[in-house]
């Protein structure tokens, strides 16, 4: 029998705020243990939480980025469970009235596009960090109370690779959107996996098994690569799977049953009496929606469609947003878009790398690039001269026309002037003239080179060839 996997992911992401969710302690990684703590985030007797408005804004911003609906009523609840890293022994979380719901994430996978539906992205608080020693454990509460977003996907994922692609795409969205730094090393992203298998074609889902403790996206992929065949093997051998929580052991590369978890989850959720409900106003929502940026995939597609750029160029402008924005300004009124992209990517970016001058301080104005391209396309200057003009543009900030004018770099297309130079060259190189007349066509190039030299590179090369040929054949 053939089996298929049904996978849903719960991704926890720390929000990029200055202070914690309920108190003014710094939201900062790497401080010495228990230095970013106060009575509130230590769960001292008598303290109360007050919601950080930026935490709420970033939550709703994520909702917009993931195409969620934003309910006009959200509230916080208490999720009750005892654990040493939970200072109050309940976690404040949005249980049945989250700030966002029903979205989706599109991403590239297997050469095509995939969509995973997002059930919800709800705001909650992080817990402390446990350190394990030989005989006991120690708790640091610096992380306790840091705003945490839990992004729950629908079980739309069918393979470990797809899970991996989804996680990376989600991370791109969150980093790009300014919601989270998603630094895996610093534990800013963590994910839990829900996985079940069923015979292909069967409608009912198999027993849902939760896997925890993956601290990287590749860890999640590896855990699934282990877990799916394990479940299928149990079933093919006639065994039964039951709902449980397993732990990923990234040393042994196996999943194993978690020992300490409650036999049954009975979290006793109820509305958090210390926090008031949240009912976003139109004005507030509009303010947040102004912070919505274009997502990487949408940007790539737009650059490919609107500017007819090849994928690699579009990707360059996705990975370097300011450069892409510069390109968009440069290309606005221009015809030869590919040429402009080449100048921005090959020349401008190279100069920036070489000189370490940030783009914002670069003197070349975006509309100077199409001007330069037009000079080449109209035969005003050669592409070789164009390189020199660009170098001058980068140093002086003058427009290409100004530079060409000032330095007299315009291509000479005046036939009279060129004829004079041709005559000079013919007179000075009798040997080449003889060779040409004897049938050595290559000799013409040598003469042509001489003319170009005499014109200091400014003569229109096509015209030079034409005139020389005419004269020699006469």
């Amino acid at each position, binding site marked *: 029998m053939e089996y298929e996997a049904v996978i849903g992911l719960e991704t926890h992401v720390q929000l990029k705020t200055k202070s914690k969710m309920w108190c003014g302690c710094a939201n900062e990684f790497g401080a010495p243990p228990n230095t970013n703590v106060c009575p509130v985030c230590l769960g*001292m007797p*008598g303290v*109360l939480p007050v919601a950080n408005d930026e935490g709420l804004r970033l939550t709703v911003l994520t909702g917009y980025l993931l195409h969620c609906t934003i309910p006009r009523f959200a509230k916080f609840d*208490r999720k009750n469970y005892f654990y040493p890293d939970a200072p*109050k*022994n309940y976690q404040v979380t949005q249980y049945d009235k989250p700030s966002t719901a029903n979205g989706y994430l599109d991403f590239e996978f297997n050469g095509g596009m995939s969509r995973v539906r997002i059930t919800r992205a709800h705001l909650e608080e992080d817990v402390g960090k446990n350190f394990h020693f030989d005989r006991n454990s120690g708790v640091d509460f610096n992380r306790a109370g840091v705003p945490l977003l839990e992004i729950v996907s629908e079980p739309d994922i069918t393979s470990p690779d797809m899970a991996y692609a989804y996680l990376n795409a989600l991370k791109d969205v969150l980093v790009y959107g300014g919601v989270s730094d998603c630094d895996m090393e610093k534990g800013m992203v963590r994910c839990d996996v829900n996985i079940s298998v069923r015979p292909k074609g069967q409608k009912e889902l198999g027993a849902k098994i939760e896997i925890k403790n993956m601290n990287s996206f590749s860890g999640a992929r590896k855990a699934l690569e282990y877990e799916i065949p394990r479940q299928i093997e149990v079933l093919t051998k006639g065994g039964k799977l039951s709902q449980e929580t397993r732990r990923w052991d990234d040393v042994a590369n196996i999943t194993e049953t978690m020992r300490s978890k409650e036999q049954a989850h009975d979290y*006793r959720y*109820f509305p958090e*009496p210390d926090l008031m409900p949240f009912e976003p106003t139109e004005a507030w929502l509009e303010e947040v929606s102004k912070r919505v940026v274009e997502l990487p995939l949408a940007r790539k597609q737009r650059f490919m469609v609107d500017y007819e750029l090849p994928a690699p160029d579009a990707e360059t402008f996705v990975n370097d947003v300011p450069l892409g924005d510069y390109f968009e300004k440069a290309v606005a009124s221009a015809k030869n878009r590919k040429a402009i992209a080449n100048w921005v990517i090959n020349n401008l970016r190279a100069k920036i790398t070489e000189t370490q001058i940030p783009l914002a301080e670069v003197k070349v104005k975006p509309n100077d690039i199409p001007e330069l391209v037009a000079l080449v396309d109209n035969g005003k200057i050669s592409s070789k001269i164009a390189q020199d003009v660009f170098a001058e543009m980068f140093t002086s900030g003058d427009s290409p026309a100004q530079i060409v004018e000032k330095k007299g770099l315009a291509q000479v297309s005046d036939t009279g002037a060129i004829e004079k130079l041709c005559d000079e060259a013919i007179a000075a190189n009798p040997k080449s003239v003889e060779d040409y007349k004897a049938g050595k066509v290559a000799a013409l190039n040598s003469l042509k080179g001489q003319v170009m030299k005499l014109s200091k590179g400014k003569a229109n090369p096509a015209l030079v060839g034409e005139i020389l040929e005419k004269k020699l054949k006469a």
Partner: protein
Amino acid sequence: MLNQLTISELTGKLAKKESSAREAIQACLDQIQKVDGQIHAFLSYDAADALAQADAADKALASGATHSQQPLLGVPIAIKDVLAVKNHPLNCASKILGKFISPYDGTVIEKLKAAGAIVFGRLNMDEFAMGSSTENSAFGPTHNPWDIARIPGGSSGGSAAAVAADECIATLGTDTGGSIRQPAALCGCVGLKPTYGRVSRYGLVAFASSLDQIGPFTKDVRDSATLLEVMSGVDHRDSTSVPQPVPRYHSALTGDIKGLKIGLPKEYMIGGLDPQVNAAVQAAVQQLQKLGAEVVEISLPHTDYAVATYYIVATAEASANLARFDGIRYGARVDGKDPIELYSNTRGAGFGPEVKRRIILGTYVLSSGYYDAYYLRAQKVRTLIRQDFLKAFEKVDAIVTPTTPTAAFKIGEKSDDPLQMYLSDIFTISCNLAGICGLSLPCGFTTNPKLPIGLQLLGKPFGEETILKIAHAYEQSTNWHKERPLLKI
């Protein structure tokens, strides 16, 4: 004796330099020395710290500070052991907190200090404010100054007894279902529970977050107004505090209540009401009419459901609020082989029977499969109870009731029957569920033995001015508040 004075009397003397703050606190400390052995209102106090605060107040007074700038300058005020005072013990009358020292001041304490008060002492209470008699203190009960064989009420029994026994000028307590008004009634002082959100809860160790409020115990109504004005106001550390301007409560104390409409709820005339209490309250109602108020009968139809609703809402919230007492970050730890065992051992040993009972009830009503039947239903009935009051307040300016069905009962009399104990809170509980304000003041005494009787005035949300005005007018026309218990010394 300075310890017998009200706030307004003492500040008058301090302003005129007739007495010093040091003399005032010393008089209180002397009285504690004399009587607290039999009353046990105080769990602890730091005399040296109190005297140092008094000296600072005297220095300020000498250099020209006035009571219009700092209304409590030099006034000793003692604090219920559920409010956080920086560098002082905070035990909630429980063993579980061990030798906990608060690292911070609650907002109300900050306000008292800013107003110049001498903040001192830890007052006895029912453990975690769970109880109506102060018998649930892990450190032994408080005794009623009017009859030391009897309870002072609870949970703020120490706060009420300390004022009644003149161990202090005024005290702070907290009220979740009557814990200020009921002991004030049973000890013969004035106790005010402000509207929910009027006073910041930051620094109040939560029992039931949606019901708790901090309020004053005083010797007269004027002092209650003084303290309320200092304590009130929105606080950026408490999301549930309301940005409502704080009135000059004193201006309401005009003595003129002509034309005010006062409602008498028919549902409060219950069978268990003691005839002497009933007679005193009826006499008080007549007195209010004599003073020009119009008394009308009103109906609060869901009164009978208040106690059941309260014990679901309050215990559910408490089960989560008290989860933090786990022996990890603070408190008296009883070790175990793993964290789970440590929790169970610590909490099994650290909590007293009433606290365990309520945590287990609250855990049960929230547990899987029971939420809708208990907690959600109780929240809905809470809506009906609140609506009862809001409807009544469309017709009347205030409501008058007895504070308690009986005067103080004997220590040990009800301690084995929690349900009977809960039912004695019948008159005070609805006020917290509705989030309105309430006040209890003396309105007479039983005879044989002579025990105080309390009159309860309930007001609209943020209607403290009205109930203070009525209470003050009544008080000025009677002498009940001037009576003092005869303590054997």
